């Protein structure tokens, strides 16, 4: 925790890349795009539920980063700043009302050949058929629960679990406090635990 407090944005190599981009080094921006665009797509997909929209949002996020080239001021880690933009874009997308995700779109995809949702499932090629089915069911159920919980809980959970952010970093993204993030992550995890209860009970803990 003490190390985090001593951290300054300029210590972040990605902030340095952004500053180099600010000086006109396009290659620095390309590096940032290649490093972070898959994560932003993944975050947006988990937030919104469809890959096509997630990719559009991710592109808009990086377009915004590009547009902010001259105005950028390092006040946090680059990833924190980037996901703050991504979070805002996802929220706008949801609130525009254009976007509706039906719960059935998260059903297991066996009957839909080539469906993008098959990508969401763990690679269980070496596992038994039952395990594969269980993993598919778990993935679909998790996505449904993610979509049901409040957006702030969803973002807190996704960033802390899938992007490995600390509570402090998540708080910066959400414009909140560490204490609030702790509560958000806890409640989101509780919702998942409740939704997956039967599966959890079947495990030998």
């Amino acid at each position, binding site marked *: 925790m003490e190390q985090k407090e001593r951290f300054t944005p300029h210590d972040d190599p990605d902030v340095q890349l952004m500053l180099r981009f600010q000086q006109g080094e396009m290659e620095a921006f390309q590096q940032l795009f290649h490093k972070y*665009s898959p994560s932003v797509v993944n975050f947006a997909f988990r937030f919104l539920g469809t890959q096509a929209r997630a990719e559009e949002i*991710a*592109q808009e996020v990086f377009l915004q980063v590009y547009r902010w080239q001259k105005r950028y001021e390092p006040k946090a880690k680059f990833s924190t700043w980037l996901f703050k933009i991504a979070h805002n874009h996802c929220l706008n997308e949801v609130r525009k009302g254009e976007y509706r995700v039906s719960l059935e779109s998260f059903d297991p995809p066996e009957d839909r050949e080539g469906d*993008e949702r098959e990508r969401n499932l763990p690679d269980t090629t070496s596992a038994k058929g039952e395990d594969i089915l269980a993993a598919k069911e778990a993935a679909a159920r998790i996505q449904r629960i993610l979509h049901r919980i409040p957006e702030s809980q969803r973002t807190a959970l996704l960033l802390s679990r899938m992007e490995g952010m600390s509570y402090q970093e998540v708080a910066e993204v959400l414009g909140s406090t560490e204490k609030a993030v*702790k509560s958000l992550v806890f409640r989101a*995890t509780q919702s998942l635990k409740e939704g997956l209860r039967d599966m959890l009970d079947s495990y030998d803990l």
Partner: protein
Amino acid sequence: MICETIKPHLVAYRDGELSEQDRSRVTAHLNACPACTREEKQLGRVEEMLINLERITPSPDFAATFWHRLEQEGQSSQEQPESRLARWWRGLREDLTSWQWTPALAGAASLLVFLSYMLTGRPTTTPTSPVQPAVQVVAAVPPPVAKEPGLFVNYNVLAELDKLNHFDEIAAVQLPGAHDTELANEENLPPELLKDPSFFVHYPILKKMEELKDLETVLDLPAKGDEHIRG
């Protein structure tokens, strides 16, 4: 009772986000409480399932699409290239104000009338109709043109068109092409226009503008304040 105070901290405990003091307190409790230990393991299992979700891989054309969008944005911010329709409109205005060649005036006048006809959805005065001086002729217009009052009957319409600043959107509107060239099927087409072949050069564009759903909204946009007629 103490279990209820410990449980809200279990996720943060697993995440290493508790203070040393709280962490010690939770650890001590877990060592003595099988129920909370089980709860903590279940939370761990949930976390594991979440982390094990496969990460989405961007589609193969994702990066290429992005760089293309970026390139387009860079071009538009640097050059503001003139769209096809903007080019046509500028050309039309220049034609109308390039008064040294009068043979085109007849065709241009017909074009203006038809434009008005299309935009308002009802017939207006034709070039041969008695002219009502709704608009004063601009001073810069050369005298030979000023003698053609029919040309200015629909000046208002053209002036309003100057406010169109969504040329790209208009040009991008996809319209069924079936009627673009089937003039014979057009109803209520003023017979004067049918006599004027020069009008039909711009017919597809006029059709596109006619069918633009929010044309009225576009026309309501504030004018940019530039000149309506180039001298």
